[in-house]
């Protein structure tokens, strides 16, 4: 009798456990990401139930990255690939062509996202073209990030139905955390009179962020980031800042100090740096930390500029 009881016990405990483990193993996804924020988002959604791999090394610039043979091998081993899809990770296209990985599920984070127009004419000498393209910096904002995180969780849930509930739960918790960061920044901005301030950015990558903060950007003074301005471009930038009567200029973290100094000397506008959220070590907290710093820096810039104006 004891033997039968033991046998039944083994059946009831070991077999379901085996089935559960097998199911989980079946869905041990290998997920590739093209940009830093996607690494953080996916890690927060899947936890340790999937392998998340960046497509490019930490210090590389996604705009200029040239894929290596090892990258193609890496891509070949993936089940899922998360991409920007709005033009920020163009290096992915030739890789996909070269590998011809038919079973790869691609999640386009810009799918279904309301995109902002991005005007290509930034300098007088660029002609009168008013051709509209779309702003690909969909990840430098909280509201857009939340929508993309939910979409990624849904799509991953379709591939791994057993884990869909967990993915959604994690995505919601993460979204809550991010929204709280936004809310805290908005409370601080509420206390500042931004009506007297004129804000400019070096490129329109921060348009989504400023829009959700309710801050109007008076001018975008440089066409693309990561490009060292020539003397003529710098002169044009200075002209545009003066014409738009800008008080605060937001540049990028790696914008050279010599240009910052020249602009400050010529225009007197205060200059602050924001992160482009696409450089540094890949980590689960990278996006949160970079965005928190951006929000803090925006609040600090507005506060200091208001104080100066008030004097």
């Amino acid at each position: 009798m004891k033997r039968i009881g033991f046998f039944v016990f083994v059946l009831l405990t070991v077999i379901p456990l085996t089935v559960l483990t097998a199911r989980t193993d079946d869905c041990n996804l290998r997920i590739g990401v093209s940009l830093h924020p996607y690494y953080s988002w996916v890690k927060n959604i899947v936890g340790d139930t999937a392998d998340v791999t960046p497509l490019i090394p930490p210090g590389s610039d996604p705009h200029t990255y040239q894929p290596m043979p090892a990258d193609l091998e890496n891509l070949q081993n993936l089940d899922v690939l998360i991409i920007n899809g709005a033009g920020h990770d163009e290096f992915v296209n030739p890789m996909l062509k070269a590998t011809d990985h038919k079973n790869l599920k691609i999640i386009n984070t810009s799918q279904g996202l309301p995109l902002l127009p991005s005007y290509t004419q930034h300098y007088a000498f660029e002609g009168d073209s008013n051709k509209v393209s779309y702003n690909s910096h969909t990840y430098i904002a909280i509201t857009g990030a939340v929508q993309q995180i939910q979409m990624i969780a849904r799509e991953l849930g379709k591939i791994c139905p057993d884990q869909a509930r967990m993915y959604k739960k994690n995505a919601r918790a993460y979204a809550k955390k991010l929204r709280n960061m936004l809310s805290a920044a908005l409370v601080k901005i509420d206390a500042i009179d931004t009506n007297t301030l004129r804000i400019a950015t070096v490129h329109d990558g921060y348009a989504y962020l400023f829009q959700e903060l309710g801050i109007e950007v008076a001018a975008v003074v440089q066409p693309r980031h990561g490009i060292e301005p020539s003397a003529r471009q710098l002169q044009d930038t200075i002209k545009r800042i003066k014409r738009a009567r800008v008080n605060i200029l937001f540049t990028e973290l790696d914008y050279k100090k010599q240009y910052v100094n020249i602009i400050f000397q010529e225009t007197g506008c205060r200059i602050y740096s924001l992160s482009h959220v696409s450089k540094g070590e890949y980590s689960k907290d990278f996006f949160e930390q970079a965005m928190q710093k951006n929000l803090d820096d925006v609040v600090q810039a507005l506060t200091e500029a208001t104080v100066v104006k008030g004097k």
Partner: protein
Amino acid sequence: MIESSTREKTYREVLVVPLAARREALILIVIISLIILFMALRFSLVRSDDSRESLKSYQSPDLYLKNQAPTLYRSLLGSVGDILDLREESGSWPDVVLLSSEGVPPFAGNFLPMGLRGFTWQRHAGEGWVDYFGVNSDIASAEEQGADPLENSFVLRIIDLQSEDHPHPHFGKDNDPLMRFSYQIWMNQQVTEYPGERLIERGWKWVVGTGSSQGGNTDTVISEQSDQ
């Protein structure tokens, strides 16, 4: 005389017909046709993704939203996932109080810039669909004093495609076995009462995405997954 008669004999009149041009003309026509065909094909492939031309009279591209309305629009799109999750948990469409307490913008106003916090929201739930209707009375009073008209009223409509009775039009097919929910955002420049099911007849505009990667809004349909 003798010389001239010899000449007549030496030079015979021969009619030289030009070479037949039919073949060359045919080849030329084929080449021109191919060039035209190629150009047409190329044009259709590389033409702008601007889908405004194909929009219905009751649709409006999201690029036309003014001032802070794009932020509200984004916020509403971002709330759909939370609404469906809460519906899955409770079995019914979550009400505005619950959404607010769960910290879901725009129902929780503290996640929005100050200019958008004047919206008040109501839930109107049908059998297989729900409307979240928001109206901004604060801006309305500014408009009365001469400010430009803005987007003052919004409806977020989520439709269960498996339900028998639900409003149309919507993206996705009725009873599609692979798709469960379709969602859409409508707007009205006026401050209005809740318009009910028939939004088009009441002059509301359906805001649709025109971004280059939006693929015709098929993305505003959610699969069965959320209920599994």
